[in-house]
């Protein structure tokens, strides 16, 4: 089995913490993994993405081909759309709906949502709002991770919860608990959609 994922967002939003949790779970499960990151100038408020590839067999390329991604997971709605040429025809888009507007020509939100809803498999959700309601505004990433875990398949949700415990363990039990709560809320949101 293999899963190719594009993680998208804006520099500073922290898409890499999602990758770190998945990476920890994948390593524990003995999966092969490649994860290409963006560092340097692009991190300064520009568009950023990470190509994350998981497989039970060895992986060659660090980059996902166009039309090859099983999932686009984005912390920002327009950024999800930036990578649709990479989405496989039956792939999923799981995205936040809260826009990050740091450019003068950000398109109208209704056009962004309309474009997103034109794809066959989309879950667009207010990740920021959900994280705030849970009392952990910094848990938006984990809400998104929870939602995508419903279609990840190559790693079961429980393995990802274990990944959260390993990655955030040294920050204390409270941080772990709030991240797991955020994760579970995301997963439930997908299941009840």
């Amino acid at each position, binding site marked *: 089995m293999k899963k190719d994922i594009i993680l998208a967002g*804006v*520099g*500073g939003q922290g898409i890499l913490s999602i990758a770190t949790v998945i*990476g*920890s779970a994948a*390593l524990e499960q003995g999966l*092969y*993994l*490649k*994860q*290409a*990151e*963006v*560092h*340097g*100038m*692009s*991190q*300064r*408020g*520009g*568009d950023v993405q990470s*190509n994350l590839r998981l497989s039970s067999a060895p*992986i*060659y*390329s*660090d*980059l*996902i*081909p*166009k*039309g*090859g991604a099983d999932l686009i997971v984005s912390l920002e709605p*327009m*950024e999800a*759309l*930036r990578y*649709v*040429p*990479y*989405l*496989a*025809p039956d792939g999923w888009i799981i995205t936040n709906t809260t826009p990050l507007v*740091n*450019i003068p*020509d*950000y*398109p109208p939100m209704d*056009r*962004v949502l309309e*474009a997103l809803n034109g*794809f066959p498999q989309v879950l667009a959700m207010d990740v920021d709002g959900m994280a705030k309601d849970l009392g952990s505004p910094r848990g938006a990433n984990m809400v998104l991770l929870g939602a995508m875990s419903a279609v990840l398949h190559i790693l079961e949700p429980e393995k990802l919860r274990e990944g959260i415990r390993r990655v955030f363990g040294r920050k204390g039990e409270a941080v772990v608990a709030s991240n797991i709560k955020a994760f579970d809320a995301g997963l439930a949101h997908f299941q009840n959609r």
Partner: protein
Amino acid sequence: MAQKNLLLGDEALALGALHAGLSGVYAYPGTPSTEITEYIQAHPLTAERKVHCDWSSNEKTAMEAALGMSYAGKRALVCFKHVGLNVCADAFMGSATTGANGGLVIASCDDPSMHSSQNEQDSRFYGSFAMMPVFEPSNQQETYQMTRAAYDYSEKRGIPVLMRLTTRMAHSRAVVENGEDIREQNSLHYPEKTRQWVTLPVNARIRNRELIKDYAQFEDDAVHSPFNSLTEGKDNGLGIIACGIAYNYLMENYPDGCPYPVLKVSQYPFPKELARQLATKTGRILVMEEGQALVEERLRGVFPSGIQILGRLDGTLPRDGELTPDAVRCALGLPALPQYPAAEVVAPRPPALCQGCGHRDFYTALNNVLKDYEGARVFGDIGCYTLGWMPPFKSLHTCVEMGASLTMAQGAAYSGTWPAVAVIGDSTFTHSGMTGLLDAVNGKADVTLCISDNLTTGMTGGQDSAGTGRIEAICEGIGVEKEHIRTIVPLPKNYPDMEKVIREELEYHGVSVIVCRRECIQTLRRHAAKK
């Protein structure tokens, strides 16, 4: 003990060096190389073995210090981004003449597609230029192994090894299994051959002839290297030469194995004998290499006219930019996967200076003053503040390479430009700006140097900056008049004061320095979180 870790290519190189018995890393930060040194700085073995790991002022000082460590018999690592190799080119070329005593590995990280760079130069050219072997691993596991092998090779052949990574290797993570043995560090011991370390012409001529002979040996080593291989294929209608990570993009497109014969190249000088063997099998050779067409250029014209060479130069692969699985797929004549068209609604989102960044306030004040000076030209430099060229600031007229701001301003000022303003960051100033300031003082140039000091090397993620706390003292020591070294704090409430100072120093017809100092908000946040 053998362990599996998720490591960036940069980190795999760092771990390989530590396990090879490293005694010191010397580096200047630069994307995509920075994480090599940061990994070594954080590794427990570094403290345990007292491995040198402080940042150097620039790539030249780094290269020279590492060469000194090699002279003293210990294993050293130098790291920088590709353009850093230009900064240290004199020392680098010289190190081929001196050769290596303790193992010396020079890691140069190229950035094809210029994700965070000003050009796409391919470090492999420097390898053949200096007659030095080049190692170019194809994946993270091989990076770990090849780094260890590079140290042994460097000592065996008495030559530094240039390790070339590219962005997608440097900044991509994969599972890396390390070796079980961690080699001891070398003890202090000096070279047996002493003359080549004094590069007077009388010695250098002798050494040059030796090096020419050695280079033929390096090529023979590459022909027999375990990191290079020629594999058979079922279909000889095409032969493929895949260099470095191009091998991955090739294999990605053939999950059940490549039907064509493949020459995988990770160790240079280019093993021409293996290419000749490949050419006996096929009449068409496709060359895939990340970066510039180094191998392809050299193969054209080498073979009889019946053999067709395909690659970047004839358009089979794109002439510039990094390779991708899609570009390689197209070159192999495979159809593109079904895909959605790009979404029209998406707007570009270029990088920008952070909200609250001191560079923003500096540019705002500078622009307000320069509105009144029609002839003003602003010479920029390399760092986050280069983003001041972009809207809304549009403050800069030039940016070329590290340190060029003040020196270009001098040439322009002498030609009649007034006011000639240079903008440089604190780390870039101590990297390559100080000697230019000495020129300005000696030449009594009519220039205004603005040092936008955020107390760190910001663009690469907040590494130490070599001159922190001493910028004014350095300028005074170089000879700038004390009354024309001014310090301002870039904040909106200070705009009137800032503008007054800038105006006064523009009106002074000599060398002025305005130090514009406020901590980078990224490092400020990190420091606050630590407390």
